[in-house]
């Protein structure tokens, strides 16, 4: 295995310095469930890793007041999830289940039990695989991503965070502190569905996040897709259609709009044709699941 140095910084200043050593390829490390197989298979060849999971606040899951950066202008509290919170902590958190059910469901689908005990939300985001289960959930939650560079923090909307396969809006040396999920009205419904070749411990062939948010006597819908484009995507065309109602004909139109938004590829896991078919089936299933819950 390719050798690399391991750093465990005391604080953010030290972390920044270690992450920005000139001429070196340095990767932040949290759960290391991506780093270990990637380095072992010689797909990533870092000179060093910086273990950030012990930095203050990175494992918090809590409600926070609106801030000047993220969650700005909200009157109610936002849900804060630290970047090093593990998938199982997120999946089992009553706060997450209550405030961001779709994310709790997505976290429950990552890898398998042992992986979920180590893998972190920030790691899933930083790796930015188009198939990352939590990413489409963050898009439909319209979460904010709080990041920290040398001196200052900034807030990036999740919708602008993922730029391409394994490419994010992070600047050199910046690390993800956590995400903040804006408050949602009571009665919000969410569903995450995915399909994979093997039921356990396999990457998603298609991942789908759907939310229905009560609005003006009806519902505002949000749909997010994973593994069918270079980044996780939202499907505004389908959302607009569903805003007019959710009778059977409208749902079918929305499914077709979702399908039209997907740009899957053939790879070793599935053909593009199968992925397209699964977009249709998962979208229908998720919409039906949610509609069945609408009072």
């Amino acid at each position, binding site marked *: 295995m390719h*050798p690399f140095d391991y750093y465990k910084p005391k604080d953010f200043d030290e972390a920044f310095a270690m992450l920005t050593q000139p001429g070196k390829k340095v990767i932040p490390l949290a759960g290391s469930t991506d780093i270990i*197989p990637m380095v*072992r*298979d010689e797909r990533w060849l870092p000179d060093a890793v910086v273990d950030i999971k012990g930095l203050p606040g990175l494992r918090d899951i809590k409600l926070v007041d609106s801030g000047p950066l993220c969650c700005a202008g909200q009157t109610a509290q936002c849900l804060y999830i630290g970047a090093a919170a593990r998938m199982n902590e997120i999946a089992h958190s009553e706060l997450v289940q209550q405030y961001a059910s779709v994310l709790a469901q997505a976290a429950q689908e990552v890898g*398998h039990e042992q992986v979920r005990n180590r893998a972190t939300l920030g790691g899933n985001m930083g790796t930015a695989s188009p198939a990352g289960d939590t990413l489409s959930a963050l898009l439909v939650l319209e979460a904010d991503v709080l990041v920290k560079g040398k001196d200052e923090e900034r807030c990036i909307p999740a919708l602008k965070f993922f730029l391409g396969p394994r490419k994010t809006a992070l600047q050199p040396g910046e690390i993800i502190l956590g995400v903040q999920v804006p408050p949602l009205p009571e009665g919000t419904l969410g569903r995450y569905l995915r*399909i994979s*070749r*093997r*039921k*356990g*411990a*396999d*990457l998603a062939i298609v991942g789908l996040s759907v939310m229905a948010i009560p609005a003006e006597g009806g519902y505002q819908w949000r749909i997010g897709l994973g593994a069918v484009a270079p980044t996780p995507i939202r499907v505004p065309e389908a959302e607009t259609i569903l805003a007019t109602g959710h009778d059977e004909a409208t749902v079918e139109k929305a499914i077709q709009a979702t399908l039209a938004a997907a740009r899957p590829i053939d790879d*070793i*896991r*599935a*053909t593009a044709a*199968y992925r397209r*078919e*699964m977009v249709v*089936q998962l979208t229908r*299933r998720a919409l039906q699941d949610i509609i069945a819950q609408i009072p």
Partner: protein
Amino acid sequence: MEGKYVGQAVTRIDARSKVTGQALYPGDFVMEGMLYMKLLFAGRPHARVLRVDTEKAESLPGVVAVFTSRDVPFNEYGLQYPDQPVLVGPPGDPEAARQLVGGGIGRDEVRFVGDQIAAVVAESEEIAAQAVDLIAVEYEDLPVLSDPRDSLKPDAPQLHPKYPGVSYHPELVFEGNIASRHRIRRGDVDAAFAQAAVVVESEYEIPGQEHIFLQPEAGVGYVDDEGRVTVITSGQWAHEDRHQVAHALGLEEEQVRIIYPAIGGAFGGKEDLSVHIVLALAAWKLHRPVKLVWSRTESIIGHHKRHHVFARARWAAAADGTLLAAENYVIADAGGYVYTTNKVMGNLLLTCNGPYKIPNVKTDVLGVYTNNIPGGAFRGFGAPQGNFIAEAQMNKLAEALGMDPVELRLLNVVQGDDPMPWGKPLPDDARGLVDTLIAAAKAVGWQQTEQGWQAPACAPRPGDPPTLKRGVGLALGVKNVGFSFGYQENAWAAIELRGGREIEAAVVYAASSDVGQGTRTVIRQMAAEALNLPLELVTLEPTDTGITESSGSCSASRMTFMIGNAIKGAAEAALQKWADEDRPARAEYTYLAPKTTPIDRETGYGDPNFSYGYVTVATQIAVDTLTGQLYFPKMACANDVGQAINPRLLTGQIEGGVIQGLGWATTEHFIEKDGYPLTKTLSTYLVPTIVDIPDELEAIVIENPEPHGPWGARGMGEMPLIPVAAAVQAALHHAVGLWYDAFPFTTERVLRGLKLKE
């Protein structure tokens, strides 16, 4: 026949050491002054090696030696036939090369991606890996054959020279790219087809399979204090490993020693050599310990797979269901080298017509060279492929005849003196065929009615969406136990009784590879039983060619049967010597199994095996017709084991075998493209996880004593896997009305079939 220890769920000998992490596997050994080896694999499917430049690698600080083809004294090996170079490249001594089979022609030719070019030995694994990257190889790429059907075309390049055959493997013909050829001719199939009420004709594609044993190939080579070059490694037949190592190094077998410590799985994947010869070569030349551990990807590239098979089958029955004829034409992908292809194909030949009374049989089986990873031994050894052909045909005939598949089998299954297609009856009464069939069928809901056995209706269960379809299916299997086709099966054991007036200790010597199935535990139980001694007094010496003779291969479901008989013989003789006042009283015994014969080259007639195992797998299935996902609420495997020596270990074999078969049938898709494997990691080659296996797996143990088996035991390790794929295919058909004739039944393949049906 239950005894004080035989038939008891005794705790495994190695339970504590494995659970606490203290058991040493081949990669765990560390010796003083030990060096590390890394191999340069060819990484291309077909090429001539023109030049291997090791100068840069050798000058890297920390590198001790770089070995190439020029350093291997006798550059050939192979379990059945030495058609593979140890290291591919130009010969060192042209005179020695001319003594190799085929006159040493083509030993500079890479024939699959896992061929090895060079072995680097260095002070650390990191340095060895760096040095591998510094080796410059000049290749001349050659045309790649990636489909055995293409290899048979007249203009296909010939991958091997015309080797001389050997009398003891008459099926190895080396005709063009045909490595081995097998056939059965009985009666007149064409006449039978002409008068048959029902004919079922199919083409099948049966996939390969990767073993994914937990412990990838590893070992340490050194020269022991008696001057023997020694390799601590994993394998399935220590004395055969020794034979091949000695041959390649040009040594006497006594100068080579093989030791097996704890082994993390094999499933047939460790029958052929991997790290053995290169480690022995380096240790012998350097006189220092050398260690080599393969990565998972090296393991997947470096060892053989279950044979990928293409088959055409045409079977006929009379209107009442009586089988009239079976015609099978089978092409198997042997890959770049023979490995055990000829023997695997022999078993495929014997199993692809099932255990049925068929008056007219025409079977052709070819093992064909390609530039894919070689086909070879894998749990079932040709029987799983043969079984799929036979049982798919039977299930289709049942449908065509409007008969229940259990009834069709009961009507046609051999019993008593009914001959098998090779002209001889099964050597015991073969009651296990019907017994396992009925037991497994009942377990998933078959019922006996006035009209005979009937499959359950499989109605939707409460809460099922209308798009979920349920079904059941089953398949019956048979496979030989032990080595066959005229080979005189044998196994050696020795027992030493120590003490004065009373026996204070019994020490057992046996060269049995405990690949994880627990054979050492079972040996201890059988020895205690045979000696009538408390289990605590019986200990087992390690599997080490330095202190044992050959007990044969841990394969072909043979070890309990063979070593059990050897232990009985040794125990009896040792007790006699004890009575004669020998102290210690030591006796050796070599058990010889009943004789078998080769089968006729043209007709397949003969008496090829002395014992068989019988098994039926039946399964429930639920198919999500919108996604193609499969669920298995319940599977049942009924196995006639003769006598369970250790019921707990036996149940583990049944459960593991069924799940390994289910993986082959569903998620394990080994993909090769133009000679390059695409599924080289555990994230792309998918073995079932705990959430992929059946909700319930019922292991049904049936005990019809095997006349020659120790305490009536018969071999069983391979049986549970064999009928799984055909049972799943039948259940799929029952659920959705489609015959899937190619597998694995991946979600995508299942859905594609449903779409085509629409």
